[in-house]
């Protein structure tokens, strides 16, 4: 891979890198000059041309999303920053906010200017206490220095940013669940349509972007769309902070352009698999379909390669498992997580996730036969795509991929076929 200057992590490890002083010394807020020289529509076009995709998991083109905001409703437009990083196995946004909060603020200024918003909310996961303190301190510093508030740097553009502390529910990372929570209601995703770009926070047009998406924007504005699009692969422009956890010798996160082969990532950055041969990788957070060691051989860290392997790029944080890992226990962990985090609105998710979890317990207890495995697959089909949000799909995908790719692990727990198992009665 060609060496690329870090865009997102260049102040990581710098002494006082989170302060405005160091931020300005290292080229911070430099994009604003370019930004205010352009018209908002031009900024959107620039970001569209850069190929920057949403880093939250779905990978929706950021510029495209911004262009959906209607400008003629007469209502205020809001930007909501999704900093509710809660996907199991994902741990990069927290460092972005901790080490370089001003970069996020600069990204928010760019985005708000583009969509003509004057109020932004950063919805931060409740557990990120230090990050919240640093964000608030950064906002205070930026306001004093004229990077926030009225007439930012003489541009005539006004912007206020507020930090909202979440209460630690996974579902509040779903964009409309986040909006509900921000409005002070239980975090239950909204039925769409209407979409939040038209009817969002407090009934006004709202854009919801992930921390890393917004942190990527200042570089695009400062260096141009073409320069950004030149980094990475054809469909995955730019750099990303990739995370690695699980059974590798070196866990952590690294910023690099898209396109690195997965095995290189595990072996060179992760220093190889710990405790045995590679068995499986969950490539982008727990809701992505799991991949076998063989599938990882020609996998690269990019949206398109993940798609070709019938999984998802997700958050770009991989979980590595060695040959001794019991896939049944892994899946039980996931079914427990998703059934616990289901908001309980839609029938298929509310009942389905819990049903899967109860069946997993039965399998782990050695009470099940292969009939239950078939049931689990059927329930997964009956959940996915039938609910308001994608939480049910986020469990259905792992269930299906685990059972298809590691069926032998599950069959070990099952009673031999033909043995009648009496139906459990309450």
């Amino acid at each position, binding site marked *: 891979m060609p060496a690329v200057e870090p865009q997102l992590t260049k102040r990581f490890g710098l002494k006082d890198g989170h302060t405005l002083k160091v931020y300005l010394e290292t080229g911070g807020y430099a994009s604003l000059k370019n930004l205010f020289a352009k018209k908002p529509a031009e900024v959107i076009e620039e970001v569209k041309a850069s190929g920057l995709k949403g880093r939250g998991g779905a990978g929706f083109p950021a510029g495209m999303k911004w262009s959906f905001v209607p400008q003629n409703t007469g209502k205020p437009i809001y930007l909501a920053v999704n900093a509710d990083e809660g996907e199991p196995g994902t741990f990069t946004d927290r460092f972005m906010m901790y080490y370089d909060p001003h970069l996020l603020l600069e990204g928010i200024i760019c985005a708000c200017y583009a969509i003509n918003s004057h109020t932004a909310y950063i919805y931060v996961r409740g557990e990120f206490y230090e990050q919240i303190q640093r964000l608030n301190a950064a906002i205070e510093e930026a306001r004093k220095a004229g990077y926030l508030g009225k007439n930012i740097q003489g541009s005539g553009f006004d912007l206020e940013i507020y930090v909202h502390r979440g209460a630690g*529910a996974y579902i509040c990372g779903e964009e409309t669940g986040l909006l509900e929570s921000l409005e002070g209601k*239980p975090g239950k995703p909204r*039925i769409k*349509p209407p979409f939040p770009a038209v009817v969002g926070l407090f009934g006004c047009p709202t854009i919801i972007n992930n921390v890393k998406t917004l942190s990527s924007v200042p570089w695009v504005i400062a260096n141009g769309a073409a320069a950004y699009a030149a980094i990475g692969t054809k469909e995955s422009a730019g750099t990303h902070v990739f995370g690695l956890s699980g059974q590798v010798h070196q866990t952590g996160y690294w910023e690099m352009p898209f396109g690195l082969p997965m095995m290189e990532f595990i072996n060179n950055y992760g220093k190889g698999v710990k405790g045995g041969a590679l068995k499986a990788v969950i490539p982008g957070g727990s809701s992505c379909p799991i991949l076998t060691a063989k599938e990882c051989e020609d996998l690269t860290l990019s949206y398109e390669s993940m798609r070709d392997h019938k999984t998802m790029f997700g958050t770009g944080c991989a979980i590595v498992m060695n040959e001794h890992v019991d896939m049944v226990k892994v899946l039980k962990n996931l079914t427990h997580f998703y*059934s*616990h*985090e*289901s*908001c*309980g*609105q*839609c*029938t*298929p998710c*509310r*009942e*389905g*996730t*819990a*049903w899967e979890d*109860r*069946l997993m*317990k*039965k399998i782990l207890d050695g009470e*099940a036969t292969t*009939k*239950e495995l078939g*049931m689990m697959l059927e329930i997964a*089909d*009956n959940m996915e*795509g*039938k*609910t*308001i949000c994608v939480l049910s799909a986020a469990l259905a995908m792992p269930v299906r991929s685990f059972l298809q790719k590691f069926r032998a692990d599950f069959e070990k727990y099952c009673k031999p076929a033909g043995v009648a198992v009496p*139906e*459990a*009665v*309450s």
Partner: protein
Amino acid sequence: MAKITIDGKPMEVADGTNVLEACLSNSVHLEHFCYHPYLPVAGNCRTCMVEIEGPKGPMLTIGCNTKVAEGMVIHTDTPKAKTAQKSALEMLLLDHPLDCPVCDKAGECKLQNQYMEYGLYDFRRGVPRYFKGGKAEDIGEHVMLDQERCVLCTRCIRFVDEIPKSSELGIVSRGHESKITIFPDVRLDNAYSGNVTDICPVGALTLKEFRFKQRVWFLKKAESVCHGCARGCNITVEHNRGRIYRFMPRENAELNKTWICDEGRFSFNYFQENRLEEVRLGHATSNLSDGIAQLANLLKDLSPDDVAGIASPTGALEDLYVMKKLFEKRFRLKNLAAPFWGKPGDEDKILKLADKTPNTQGLNLLGFDTEGKDLLSRIEKGEFKVVLIAHNNPFGQDEERAKKVFAKVKALIVLSVHKTKTVEAGSMAFPVRTFIEKNGTFVNATSRLQRFRQAVEPENPDIVEASLWMVRLAKALGATGFDFEDSPSVFNAMAKEVGALQGLTFNKIPATGKVLDLKPLAAEPFQGVKAQPNVSGKAKV
């Protein structure tokens, strides 16, 4: 109008209709559960799944939250849609207690009905049942909550948020541990709380007044109109073996939608208690024929000027009409009035009106003097020997005043439903039927002429409609033109005479009533409640 295709059949529906209503109004059955035509769409039960063709092929979506668009192609019966509908139902029933034999909702339970219509799969759960717990929680003055039957459709929550706007109910906990409950230190005691039990699709919310009283399949139903105030909400009187078990709201999109207030809902016992059962002549009891004969005997010798009449807005239009005719033909019309004795009750901007009588506008229609000051002062002066009081209860409502007014009257003839103080004060009392025992019409405060049908027949044949009692009296007094057999024939005769009723017959009155050209006495209901424009009248309410 939008041209759409449902299951291969082209059809046209109004713009802005949702797919579910479009299906139902075109005889395409589509399962639905959380959807209520008069509440905001929640889209959480996921049973009304349909496939809609789009640029990326058919897409599975819910019908209730999808508006029709020109050229839309909808499939309700593809394998994918059918599986989605069926599996959602399976999940709704997953941990349901199936205590139908002891559940009051059995027989009108949407879960039961939908299973029979769309489910019929083999049961499988494979794991022990999850107990949500909470049997018979007392959550309000009228409402009990059986937590484990709840399917979390949130209809009740949406109701308390949208209609009374009192928001006592909410969901606590998450996922399959979610529970609907009242907030701490709050009870479900709003003036419309009974409605949550109607819209609860299962037996989770039940009425204390109806629990374990009657299986719903034994109940016979009669279309009726609430008697509790001048709003005239449409109701169904549900009865069995001559006993009323409940009043249920009857859908009328233009009036009460599908709601009624608790005051009206629980008024049914009022019509079954403390009834006047026998004809009273002084201290003796008698029968109707003797009573009428004795009364006719008394009146025969008097001058027409000696008799005054006091009607009431609680009487049906037919009662008022015959009474008016009686005074016109046999006595003096100027000696008939319908003075108001009671005090106004409480009102709100939803349905309840301060006028707690059902037919004040009917009095206006027939030209009654609704103040009657002149008549009362003349009665007080002793100008009348006999006063006929129909349905009114002056002694019960203002005893002191009544005693003063009627002090000089020789004979007070009382027609009454209940054993009232006026009955006690009267020299003759005749029992008459309530609105649940007869056919008739009321005109509500917003000038809507509405018909109610007889639900039960009183055991005692001497208890007759006030209108037919007047007919018997008129005949006994030798008056002509009183050839009425029943209330409908009275109405039909009245319709020929009263301009506003031209062209109507009793049976031709629409089930939801007909607005007459009269100045309304009150504002339209549901002030400040968002309208749901999307009603086909076919969705289950």
